[in-house]
């Protein structure tokens, strides 16, 4: 206990320096938290993917459609529970800077395969009945102030022309990681118009989503599906939803690596700031340590004294930094153009990492001063003029 008291007294000796160090650590922890949050937000799509869903797309790349006729053939593969499909619609809503996914889906089964999109029963029933209906995510409803019954006009690009959709449902994300910013409408609506305007493009779907009974069978089912269409004009590539999402992110890998690297540089910087403070403190107190040793304090007392002070400063700074991380990430999300990161949360793992980094830094920063304090003999220490 006496050591505790000494630690606090020591911390208060250079109030300004301790204050600056705490602020420095708090800032670094905050930066660390922000960077990690950006990384986790980037991978939100990967994290949100379900283990029992497979995605089948055109083997060449996702921009090529698959025939609708594949549906009935895929359904026959053993181990498959449900097959549904969707098309990327794209288009422009209001202007080109409004980022959110607009997709045409198989209205009958899509929401059965994606149980994390929670739509009230009555809204879903109305949606299924009306061809030009759409269901939007709660974030979209909020961002554009859309209510049930409103009309969403969209200028098509992949499917040229003007399109109008009536909002018939608003889904809520089940999990924190679920994308709350999709706009989902009838594939059938798209199909009818394609039949009239561009018959060659009718009967095509962008990708199939397959719900399998047993997630452990993913590789086997994927292979069986792909084998069905091998050597046909439209070969398929089936993979787990997670792998599909990761594929999208693979190209961004270098950037993510760079951001990751930066987050570790931040930890390096915290270490430098705290290490510097502790080294200075130790340098000033060489004589004092000698006095303590003379009075009979053991080596362990000294270790406890120095490490304790270092840890106290780092955990204090870490705690403040973590507390500020939440408003900071919220402000950062506000500063970004809307829709870049539909899911932007401080994940528990981020908090754990930042907290343990602060503690680790506290321990490491005290190593050098301890070494110095222990290495100096009493006589040498007493002789030093401070």
């Amino acid at each position, binding site marked *: 206990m006496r050591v505790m008291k000494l630690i606090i007294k020591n911390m208060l000796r250079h109030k300004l320096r301790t204050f*600056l160090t705490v602020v420095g650590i708090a800032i670094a922890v905050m930066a660390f938290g922000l960077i990690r949050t950006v990384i986790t937000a980037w991978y939100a799509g990967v994290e949100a993917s379900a283990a029992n869903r497979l995605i089948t797309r055109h083997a060449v790349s996702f921009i090529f459609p698959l025939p609708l006729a594949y549906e009935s053939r895929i359904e026959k593969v053993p181990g498959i529970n449900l097959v549904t499909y969707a098309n990327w619609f794209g288009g422009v809503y209001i202007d080109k800077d409004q980022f959110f996914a607009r997709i045409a889906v198989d209205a009958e089964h899509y929401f059965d395969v994606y149980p994390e999109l929670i739509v009230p029963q009555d809204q879903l029933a109305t949606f299924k009945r009306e061809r030009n209906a759409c269901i939007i995510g709660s974030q979209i409803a909020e961002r554009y102030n859309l209510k049930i019954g409103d009309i969403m006009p969209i200028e098509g690009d992949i499917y040229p022309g003007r399109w109008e959709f009536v909002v018939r449902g608003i889904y809520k994300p089940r999990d924190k990681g679920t994308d709350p910013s999709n706009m989902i409408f009838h594939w059938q609506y798209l199909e009818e118009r394609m039949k009239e305007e561009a018959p060659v493009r009718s009967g095509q779907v962008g990708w199939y989503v397959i719900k399998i009974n047993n997630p452990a069978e993913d590789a086997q089912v994927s292979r069986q599906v792909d084998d069905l269409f091998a050597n046909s004009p439209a070969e398929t590539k089936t993979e787990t939803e997670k792998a599909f999402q990761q594929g999208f992110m693979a190209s961004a890998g270098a950037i993510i690596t760079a951001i990751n690297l930066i987050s570790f540089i931040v930890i390096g910087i915290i270490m430098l700031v705290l290490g510097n403070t502790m080294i200075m403190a130790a340098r000033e107190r060489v004589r004092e340590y000698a006095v303590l040793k003379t009075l009979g304090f053991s080596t362990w007392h000294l270790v406890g004294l120095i490490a304790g002070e270092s840890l106290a400063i780092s955990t204090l700074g870490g705690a403040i930094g973590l507390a500020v991380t939440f408003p900071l990430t919220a402000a950062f999300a506000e500063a970004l153009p809307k829709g870049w990161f539909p899911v932007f949360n401080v994940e528990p793992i981020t908090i754990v990492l930042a907290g343990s980094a602060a503690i680790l830094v506290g321990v490491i920063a005290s190593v050098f001063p301890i070494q110095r304090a222990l290495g100096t003999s009493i006589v040498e220490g007493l002789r030093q003029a401070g």
Partner: protein
Amino acid sequence: MKIPLKYSLRSLWTRRLTTVLTMIGIALVVFVFAAVLMMAHGLQKTLVATGSDDNMIVLRKSASGEITSIIGREEAAIITSLPQVARLPDGKALASGEVVVIVNLQYVGTEGYANIMVRGVSPEASLLRPQARLTSGRLFRFGSREVIVGSSVARRFQGAGLGERIKFGGDLWEIVGIFDTEGSGFDSEIWGDGDQLGQAFERSVFSTVTVRLTSAAQRQEFLTAFEADRRLQTLEAKPEKQFYEEQSELMAMFIRILGIAITVIFSVGAIIGAMITMYAAVSNRTVEIGTLRSLGFRRRSVLSAFLVESFLLSMLGGLAGLLLASILQFFSVSMINFASFSEIAFSFALSPEIILMSLLFAVIMGIVGGFLPAVRAARLDILSALRAA
């Protein structure tokens, strides 16, 4: 009277460990600051180099990129017949109606796949883009299933080397050449005969049409003629450079917003680091300062000596950080361009502005961090300072 520079230098040297730690702190911040700017600059440089001044690119109005644009053959014919379009001696328009699609290729050495743009071009395309040079092999023959690949594609993807065959569009395409465009976005593409690729992918329409104007000065007239034609109302013409610049905007903005947020936070941290160091320098040397003052050095001299010291500290840190960052120029990174959904490779690029900004940034950190401690040193009272020991 001024305190000699040597005093400041020696002071830094005496407390080497603290000096080095502070310097590393500043160096790291400058490194991150410079790296972020270099990345954004590199990306933009690559995409802007992709366009050339007297080319115009035509897309569908609502299209966000080449991949989502559709232009009919008749519309393309109207565009190329506009009078401002440059012509070859045989009267053919200097224009390329292009089919753009995306194919998946696997990286060398890893599991990951990336989306690569395949561009079907017209025979005139090489005249439109004179910066494209073949580094090995030959040009594909029009009318055959051959392609040439950009240097960055050839280097980074499996089965994309000279003489190999890529499978897409229900056929095998032989790679007969590798081309390089001096670091523009085209280096991340595959080029082939537009008619062949169109057939293979069952596309009877173009994605975009690129035309060369008789001169860059004709741009306004071309745009006026273009907009006046009712048949082209769903389309939009843009200078090629501007188009590629817009394509890079989103990603460059992301890099910048994140980069600025991080560096602002970092710099506060580094300023605090410098402040701690300089405060300690002042309190360690209280007697020394008292001695200086009693020798007749003025408050102002003491202030400037300490400021010089922190200036030197930050300058050293800044230079070290820049040196570290300049090594990055040897690395190229790739990222997905969300405007085209395909991959683009670019390298970190250093520019004189970035060097200047980084050093300025370092010095500001040093001066801001060193100012308050220097003021404290200057305001020390001679008597109590001498007594402090």
